[in-house]
């Protein structure tokens, strides 16, 4: 099966190094969370993979062939990003048809269901849609194209809670019906945690975590207790985040810890993905 291999990618803008030796891979049929703070490099990486921009150095391949300027490769890749590249005066219906003419296929069954449940008026011009319905239009396109690797950059911008929930439902359904890879870059981590199978965490242009959600969360814990007691044991652990509040401290550590082995008064808690993320990227 095909996978996308990213090998030592570097991207500079003038003097600024936005991506520094990024290496990873995207396997078929998995849902990835691509996490990182604003400006970390997530969008840039996805732009490079989808042939929107050129890397300064390094290679990205799918099936051994480069993704850059290669239509055969790009037929497997689709990026839906924050910016709108559709002509503002095009009606939604026309955009769907245009997508179909470029890819030869479009899942009209799924599209119809989504249009109906989201309440999208496909006769409106995309320029006149709200941010939310803009996002919904882009989501429908992304989910209905015959592409194996779908990259979504902040897909739920402007979506209200109900629509977000609906998106997750459709995502899970289409993923089950037609398993393919989704790589989702988002800041809304808490809601999407259960959807991700694998996480890639980017900080300052480098990948600092690249693993299954479960493995990452199992390999770290939060120690909480009296500040003095915490300070006393701090050096025994691989601390990546500390936070104190009126005499109580929290330590995020990259260790497996047995509560029984800790001094009294210090508790061990598992971190959720959002807490882990904040700790790792602070």
């Amino acid at each position, binding site marked *: 099966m095909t996978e996308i291999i990213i090998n030592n990618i570097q991207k500079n803008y003038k003097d600024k190094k936005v991506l520094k030796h990024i290496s990873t891979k995207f396997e078929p049929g998995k849902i990835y969370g691509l996490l990182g703070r604003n400006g970390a490099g997530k969008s840039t990486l996805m732009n490079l993979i989808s042939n929107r921009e050129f890397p300064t150095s390094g290679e990205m391949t799918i099936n051994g062939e480069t993704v850059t300027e290669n239509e055969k490769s790009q037929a497997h890749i689709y990026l839906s990003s924050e910016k709108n590249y559709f002509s503002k005066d095009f009606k939604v219906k026309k955009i769907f048809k245009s997508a179909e003419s470029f890819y030869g296929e479009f899942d009209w069954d799924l599209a119809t269901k989504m249009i109906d449940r989201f309440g999208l008026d496909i006769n409106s011009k995309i320029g006149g849609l709200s941010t939310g319905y803009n996002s919904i239009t882009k989501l429908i396109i992304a989910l209905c194209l015959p592409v194996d690797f779908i990259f979504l950059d902040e897909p739920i911008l402007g979506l209200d809670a109900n629509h977000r929930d609906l998106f997750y439902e459709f995502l*899970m359904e289409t993923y089950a019906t037609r398993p393919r890879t989704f790589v989702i870059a988002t800041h809304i981590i808490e809601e999407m945690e259960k*959807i991700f*199978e694998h996480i890639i965490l980017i900080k300052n242009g480098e990948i600092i975590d690249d693993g299954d959600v*479960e493995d990452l969360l199992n390999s770290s814990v939060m120690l909480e207790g009296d500040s003095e007691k915490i300070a006393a044991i701090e050096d025994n652990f691989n601390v990546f985040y500390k936070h104190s509040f009126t005499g109580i401290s929290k330590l995020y550590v990259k260790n497996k810890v047995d509560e029984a082995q800790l001094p009294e008064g210090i508790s061990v808690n598992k971190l959720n993905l959002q807490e882990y993320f904040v700790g790792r990227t602070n």
Partner: protein
Amino acid sequence: MYFKFDERTPLYLQIADQIESAILKGIYKKGQQIPSTTEISKEYRINPATVLKGMNILVEKNLIEKKRGLGMFVTQNSQDEILEDRQATFYQDYVLKTVEVAKELNLSLEELQELIERGYQND
């Protein structure tokens, strides 16, 4: 099924646990089909791989079985086995904790016993 998504237990274990509870309560009876991975995944917005992992634990414990092309079904002895299993861990999971809290609150053994009796009568 109700998932609390608390951070203490891995999600796949929670899923296994919740299905077990449902079987214990008789919601899914002997030989009955339980919801598919896809259905649970869609309903609770959980990655199917996680759901599958939880189900596989139950398959290994022989509490549910996979029938090719049909889905997952509750095995004949499932309910009894779960009951036995949980009775065995009852002391560990509930009693010890209750005693610990009771001690923290300075409740004597007799006071605790009284409370337990009251609890049974309240049914």
